[in-house]
């Protein structure tokens, strides 16, 4: 299971003549060449890709945790007209593959009024395409997140709300003072699932961006292949570096990660 990873790191450390010399294959590098990592990073604007990916992941994770837990709390604990009906529509989102909605999403992004040279009818420019808005805003909502938060809050005793209400506590205060401090486990597992999903996403940014300055790290890996022959040592070095952040998150929060999968089961 680990062999491909080990191969990746070793290849990233090899000198190029060691890779391309025929009939002299060795799994271990003969000379450990750390410089490959620096050279690989200098071949493309990787600082830009990393900034983009870090920024997008950070904003999406924080924002979606807030939004999803708000909605989850509301669906689980508050009564308002049409609640079950509205929740049913959220569940539809669990069934629709993201690739099914990508074409209209693209068209909507392109037609955002007043952005990217568009007029008020959304004509003439590129709208939100190739901007952070396109990469962040749709990801802030999420059926799975709402669903999991709702399930989590349903497990809280009803007496909690009643006590809060009798004491004159508004739902806003009840959320911030009672529910939020008790939500650490669901924040942790949801946050980690979201971090990995956003950091690793390829299809969505591929469709929504086209310029160098908006590329994410996953799109950046394509750089080494578009230029004819593949420079394996650089490609593997870059792949290693792109993998490290998510690996660190995984190793630090392994417990929550596994918990997240267990409670969600859905990915």
């Amino acid at each position: 299971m680990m062999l491909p990873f080990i191969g990746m790191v070793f290849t990233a450390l090899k000198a190029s003549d060691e890779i391309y010399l025929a009939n002299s294959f060795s799994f271990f590098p003969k000379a450990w060449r750390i410089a490959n990592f620096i050279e690989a990073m200098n071949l493309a604007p990787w600082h830009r890709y990393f900034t983009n990916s870090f920024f997008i992941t950070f904003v999406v994770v924080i924002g979606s945790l807030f939004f999803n837990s708000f909605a989850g709390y509301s669906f689980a604990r508050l009564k308002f007209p049409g609640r079950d009906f509205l929740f049913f529509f959220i569940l539809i989102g669990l069934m629709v593959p993201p690739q099914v909605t990508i074409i209209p999403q693209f068209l909507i992004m392109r037609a955002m009024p007043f952005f990217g040279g568009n007029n008020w009818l959304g004509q003439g420019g590129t709208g939100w395409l190739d901007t952070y808005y396109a990469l962040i805003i749709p990801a802030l909502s999420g059926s799975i997140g709402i669903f999991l938060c709702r399930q989590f809050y349903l497990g809280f005793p009803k007496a909690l709300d009643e006590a809060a209400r009798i004491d004159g506590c508004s739902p806003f205060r009840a959320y911030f003072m009672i529910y939020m401090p008790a939500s650490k486990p669901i924040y942790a597992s949801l946050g980690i699932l979201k971090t990995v999903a956003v950091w690793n996403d390829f299809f969505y940014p591929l469709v929504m961006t086209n310029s160098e300055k908006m590329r994410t790290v996953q799109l950046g890996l394509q750089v080494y292949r578009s230029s004819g022959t593949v420079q394996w040592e650089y490609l593997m070095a870059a792949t290693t570096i792109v993998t490290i952040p998510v690996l660190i998150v995984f190793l630090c929060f392994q417990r929550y990660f596994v918990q997240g999968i267990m409670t969600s089961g859905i990915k």
Partner: protein
Amino acid sequence: MKNRPKRFFRKKLNSERIGLLFILPNYLIYTVFVLIPVIWTLYLGFTDYNLMSAPKWVGIQNYVQAFQDENFTTALMNTFLFSIFTIFPSMVLGLIAAVLLNNKLLKGKAIFRACYYMPNIISMVAASMVWLWIYDPGHGLLNSILMAMKMETKDWLFDPFLAMPSVILVNIWNGLGYNMIIYLAGLQGIPEYLYEAATVDGASKLRQFFTITIPMIKPITFFLFVMACIKSFQVFDQVFIMTNGGPINSTTTIVHQIYQNAFQYNKMGYASAMALVLLLITTTITLFNFKYGNQESDII
């Protein structure tokens, strides 16, 4: 009595308006970027639309064309084959790994678990890049090993007969850990006394596995199967990166065709029709899950 109207107002504000206020940001985004697009895709599927001129209504022509289009029928076929040959091996291997790791005598379980799970954490892009190197005909790991063993080397991803199995192998490697984690949870939920009773009755370990373990984890198996189906039908990244559908369309899939038609050939209407075929397939699987899945014992 005097403060009744005020209390009534407060109650209304508290529970009803605020409830809506809480879901508002989410619902706005969700409506614009999920609900409306679903309906829009439905509409676009019946039109001819190339981004330049307005969509032109063409009825079911896109669907007729799709099912006569060899690229799309091949993609459908490939996606089915990909799903079948990915799902079963990775579930069986995942279960075996879980059973082995559930063994109390085994040391260093956490490390094994992390190792098996790791392919699932890293992006499909990174995994694809690593396997591209493994499959590289000239300098790759696989052919280098074959050469060292004086065996015939193969053009893994460039051979129309080998390309799909090669992509499938990557996916089995990738999905195994996820199945293992879920199975492991299921195995730990089986009460110990069942095995103790069986041991007292003289049932062998293998017999116990088939008469206790397998039936007890049936709901999990069903759940994993449905999830894996839905995920497999959406396969794109690895195909796009490793083979781009080639050679001679041997690895093209439904989503790959959607992507190509929509964003490379600008045939938005035609691609939307394909997207609806995908939606139909995944919805069928999900409804099948609702109908036959044992919801009570699901992990959800």
